[in-house]
């Protein structure tokens, strides 16, 4: 741009238009691509809006209306939504299930606040949140009727497995990561073999082993119920992945810090809890959130080994009967539930990543 570079910049509006033109029609080939892709985009949007809104039925649960339209039949959510959200949980106790889910959501939101970032504070928060969840769901005290885990289902079962896995898995992960970094060869090798074996197996096979094989090799008194076993097995799986993330975080801390702390006379416990772990977690926050997101999505795998979580209850809701033809609406509804959780969490992770990058210059 000879000469022109020094002249006055064009007004902001024209600049934006120019920018837009450059990003859409910079040359003839780009122009053709824009037109084709634009046509595809418009047709997707138009068809989607047409199906989901313009031609859709929103009214009360009545199948006959749905048969007359070409669009979505959202009445199916009205008719079967409770089954999807609560599974076989007793009908008059649904408020407990709702409240329990809300508590975990609030716990998750609270743990996103930097003011609460500390090993003690976060552990206390999650143990309190998870404890309240279990008391609400199971009942037996405060005049709440007992609802056994076989009756748990729908969204609250998904949330229970997720929260249980994180609460149990995080301390396990710290233990495994420290064991793998241990200078004692037996501890180091046992941890390494354990982590690598678990990581190389599909989650489904581990959960399957917990549900079907453990009763076979563990004495009766130590078995617990099926849901408990599956949550523990899932937590072990999560811990194996999280341990590697924490280990990477520990390795990113200059070794001088550990040596300095030891030189100051701090004991191992204090070095780990006050110097190593806080930094290791801060350095690996984005990958930790990513792993948490993956774990939330993977809770859906328990469907296969016979649990009635939100994915399984979606299939059950459209299995047979008059609403069977509207399976797409139910699956879209469940997909949206997952989407809200997962998209929200991953956006938060991306925000944190940007923030740390800014702080480090």
């Amino acid at each position: 741009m000879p000469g022109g570079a020094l002249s006055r910049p064009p007004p902001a509006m024209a600049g934006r238009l120019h920018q837009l033109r450059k990003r859409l029609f910079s040359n003839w080939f780009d122009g053709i691509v824009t037109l084709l892709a634009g046509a595809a985009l418009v047709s997707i949007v138009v068809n989607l809006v047409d199906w989901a809104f313009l031609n859709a039925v929103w009214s009360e649960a009545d199948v006959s209306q749905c048969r007359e339209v070409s669009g979505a039949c959202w009445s199916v959510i009205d008719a079967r939504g409770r089954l999807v959200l609560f599974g076989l949980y007793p009908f008059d106790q649904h408020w407990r299930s709702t409240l329990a889910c809300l508590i975990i959501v609030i716990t998750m939101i609270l743990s996103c606040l930097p003011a609460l970032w500390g090993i003690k504070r976060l552990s206390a928060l999650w143990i309190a949140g998870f404890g309240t969840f279990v008391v609400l769901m199971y009942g037996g005290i405060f005049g709440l009727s007992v609802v056994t885990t076989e009756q748990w289902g729908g969204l609250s079962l998904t949330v229970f497995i997720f929260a249980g896995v994180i609460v149990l898995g995080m301390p396990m992960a710290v233990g495994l990561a420290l064991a793998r970094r241990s200078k004692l060869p037996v501890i180091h090798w046992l941890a390494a073999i354990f982590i690598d074996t678990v990581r190389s197996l599909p989650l489904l096979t581990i959960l399957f082993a917990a549900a079907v094989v453990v009763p076979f090799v563990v004495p009766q008194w130590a078995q617990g119920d099926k849901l408990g076993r599956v949550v523990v097995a899932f937590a072990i799986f999560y811990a194996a992945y999280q341990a590697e993330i924490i280990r990477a975080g520990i390795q990113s801390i200059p070794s001088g810090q550990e040596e300095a702390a030891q030189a100051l006379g701090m004991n191992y416990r204090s070095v780990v809890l006050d110097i190593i772990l806080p930094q290791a977690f801060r350095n690996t926050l984005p990958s930790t959130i990513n792993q948490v997101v993956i774990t939330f999505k993977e809770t859906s795998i328990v469907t296969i080994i016979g649990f009635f979580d939100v994915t399984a209850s979606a299939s059950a809701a459209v299995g047979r009967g008059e609403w069977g033809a509207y399976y797409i609406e139910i699956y879209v509804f469940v997909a949206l539930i997952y989407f809200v959780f997962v998209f929200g969490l991953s956006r938060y992770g991306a925000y944190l990543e940007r923030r740390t990058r800014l702080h480090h210059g």
Partner: protein
Amino acid sequence: MLRVLRNRRTRGYVIQAAVLAASLLLTLSFVLTARDNLVSQGIATGFGFLDRSTGWPINFSIIEATDRSPYSRMLLAGFLNTILVGLAGLACATCVGLAVGLMRVSSNLILNVLGTVFVETFRNVPLILQVIFWYAILTHMPSPRAAIDLAGLGFLSNRGLMLAAPAWSALDLAIIALSIIAALFAAHRFGGTRPLAPWGLALAGIVALSVVLLFLGHEPEMPLISLPELRGLRFVGGVTIKPEFSALLIAIMAFGGAYIGEIVRGGFLSVDKGRLEAARALGLSNAQINRFIRIPLAIRAMLPALTNQYVWLMKATTLGIAIGYPDYFMVVSTSINQSGQTMELLLLLMVGFLLINYTISGTMNWINGRLAIKGRS
């Protein structure tokens, strides 16, 4: 006693011995309990059951496996099914991921938007829900009588996708293989120095030779391509792709494509801007910059993440059990139900997946090693 424990080295030995003893005890107690249970159920341990016939069929396999086949054959069929859907899934997911990733790094705004929508839609919904969703769609297709005609290439019905398939004899295949070798040899021998010319030449050579030889060496009454045809209530001829397989493949393609798209995007974004500017300053054209600078560097940055993703996707094929695709895991779990040989089958399951995972990561590491920039590191 306590004073001995205060010595750091002794304490280390004591801790290690305790941990080792505890893990050995735990394993021993597992083995003993398992043996008690086996004895009480009257099940013989060992791998002798592999020769017994199963008594149950599987609905899809690429080698012959019926309800009279022995367990070993059934397990092999399941293993091959896993490899089949896994490799097909990896290939499709890589193509989709490449396209999506390129869309997201392109300068075109609309392509950006399309790529982002794809990634966010398919990455944020659990894979198993997608598998079940596509399976529901495919099994709600019309019955074979009212099958959707795909412009003469095949039909789509609730029994699966019926496609036209080449009906080639061993002789035909040999002819094609020979012509490919001949064409490659010709390209290598007469290619000259221009880099793209020999490949174009080779491709043209293969096509021409194959067509000529196929028509020369072919028996006139046999058609070259077998088309699916409706006979009564079902289709005959061609090749049928079952909805179980297609649903799993589509789901892996979309989910894996979204993840691989992000890896591709990350790879391109990781290329140092200074190098691109340096290339431009040296007078390289945009195409040359892409070919010699940007793509090679981006691929090197992508490979480690891609390896992890491939291993992950391969393990994810086990989700096929949700819709009844008989992969290795499904065959193993049915065998456990039917024969009770839990320990042996679990061992086989672990060995199978370790084999697959280490093959993938070994291959990818080999490629990584070959591609790594030589010299300074």
